[in-house]
């Protein structure tokens, strides 16, 4: 399986191309709120950029917190999102301490699929899509937030 990795966060120029790619390719909308990858600033543009992506936890708290089964962990470790089941309660948002899950304008969870759409539109090679063993090896424990 694939996992999105923030390989070089210090190379980020804050262009937001990844966020626009995520929403454009996965939802067909032009939107920051529908992007599963988030670029934040720490102390404004003169500070450091922060790249927030889904950690792909081995035992994902978002799945445990979801009361409707909208977030489901498959046997291979992938978490899939069933939009029709999402009731917009925001429990998943609260338990993801790194802030990788949010709600969009329709009150539906925005969850990274580790598809790599953002990787293709990062001009500075901040992002990588890496191959990780199914069911999560030790690599999956490494932090991907910087």
């Amino acid at each position, binding site marked *: 399986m694939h996992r999105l990795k923030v390989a070089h966060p210090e190379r980020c*120029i*804050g*262009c*937001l*191309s990844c966020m*626009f790619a995520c929403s*454009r*390719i996965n939802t*067909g*909308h*032009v*939107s*920051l*709120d*529908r992007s599963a990858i*988030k*670029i*934040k*600033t720490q102390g*404004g*543009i*003169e500070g450091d950029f922060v790249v927030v992506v889904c950690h792909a936890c081995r035992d994902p708290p978002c799945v445990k917190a979801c009361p409707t089964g909208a977030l489901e962990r498959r046997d291979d470790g992938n978490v899939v999102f069933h939009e029709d089941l999402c009731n917009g309660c925001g429990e998943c948002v609260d338990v993801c301490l790194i802030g990788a899950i949010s709600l*969009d*304008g329709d009150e539906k969870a925005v969850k990274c699929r580790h598809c790599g759409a953002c990787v293709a*539109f990062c*001009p*500075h090679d901040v992002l990588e899509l890496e191959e990780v063993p199914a069911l999560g090896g030790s690599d999956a424990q490494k932090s991907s937030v910087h």
Partner: protein
Amino acid sequence: MLRRVLYIDLGKKESWVEERDELFERWLGGTGVATQLLLEECPQGVDPLSPEAPIIFSIGPLNALFPVVTKTVTAFKSPLTGELGESYAGGRLAMAMRFAGHESIVIRGAADRPSYISITDDDVKIKDATSVWGINATTVGFILREVETGVGRRSIIRIGPAGEKLVKYAGVIVDTYRHFGRLGLGAVFGSKNLKALVISGTEDVEVPDPGRYRKVYNKLYRIAVQTDVMDKYHDIGTSININVLNQLKGLPTRNFQSTSFEGAANISGEVFADDYLFRKVSCAHCPIGCIHIAMLKTSFAPHHEFEIRKVSYDYELIYALGSNLGVSDPAGLLELIEACERYGMDVMSTGVVLGWATEAYERDLITPQETLGVPLQWNNIKGYQKAIDHIVGMPNEFYAALAQGVELASDRYGGKEFAMALAGNEVAGYHTGPASIVGQIVGVRHSHLDNAGYSIDQKAAKKQLKPEEMVDAIIKEDDSRGVFNSLVGCLFARGVYTNDNIIDALGAIGIEKTQEDLDDLGKRIFEEKYRFKRREGFDIAEIKVPKRFYETITTMGMVDPETVETMLEIYRERRGW
């Protein structure tokens, strides 16, 4: 995609949104629409710093949707020139306006006390800014960042003390390191008691055909990132031109007394890139990242005690406060740039004003009594720092005159022949030849970016262009930039957005245009801007070219007044004036 106009009346404390479909259909967006709104909103002959003078902001149909279409245009009546005021800024403003659902914003009236405007989608609040009045432009950005919402998608634009004190070339700082620099929008903000505007929103933009949109997007992204059309901006940046123009005898030095600077190698783009550059950042939705930020590290005490300042730089800044003032110390130059950033004043105008003042001081047109003992001397950084403080503080009549711009100051103290403004606007850093001079005279806002005459000179130097050919090139740029500025694209991306690619991008979001449509639009926009200019008293025949332009060698050799006159005549003829 919402295409609406948000009206805000500061005096009445009201706001409302209007659907103006016909306006956007006819004038596309950006500067096309902003010019119409200015014609509607600005009463003829109004004092630019009175409550009746409006401020307009506009974005265009491609902003936030395609890469490198990152600019917002503002239109106002310029307190510096008394006619068309227009300026462009990047940062995150265009994106924030898109997601707030407003392609244009009109600000009317004046607040009765220091205020700022906070916009979240359709919700507009006029808030008290008394506690931040007087605070420099950099710090007020930090403060508003803490108290306002919309983190990550908002834009914060604000003035510094120069705008509050109505310095006629005060600018507006956009987010961080970007500016509505030219022609005095900062003073217009100040005259309205308007310290800042914060905007964000959550509009979910849908495109009619996502497949077609993605296809065109991919093509444009690839050209921007994977070809060499934007290399110059991505690598050393615009400051690469310091060495280039110095060699071409086009780099204005010591108030245009020379066009090559013996200290150029010390303040070149290469030096800044190698020794000071520590980061490059982007405007929202631009993969290039051309905003070059220098780290200025200065020791303030023994025992390795340092101050660190992060200062953005570009070619025009290095010209204006560097070669034009004989400044050859890069660290000192960064300090001068930073002073202007904090005060919120246009660096080009400041540099030209100080260049004139230095020469006037040398020629005894100005006495130490007038400068309050400040030594206005080439390369005297401490003196220039003090002078910048005084331009904003206006402790006497002399500095108050400097705050009005170089034309007014030279009216009062003499030295008009070396007061380097054209049509009231202090000139940019190119003494390349006649096309640069003519281009800035005829240009709609008397900016080097109206038609890039400096670039036409450089072509002419290689290809021996005739005056007619140079004039035709100026007209072509005048008109085509009117279209590009209606989108509102970054001019650095002109190589990405060829005519065909503009038509493709518009088509991908449901706006079908032909080349003829766009050519016609460019001409009409130019005429409409001139309609405003003439209405406010602009007459091209009254423009006086300071003698200095003809006394200093250019890239094209010496320019004689007859060449400029001939080109202006051809220009008038071609335009049918």
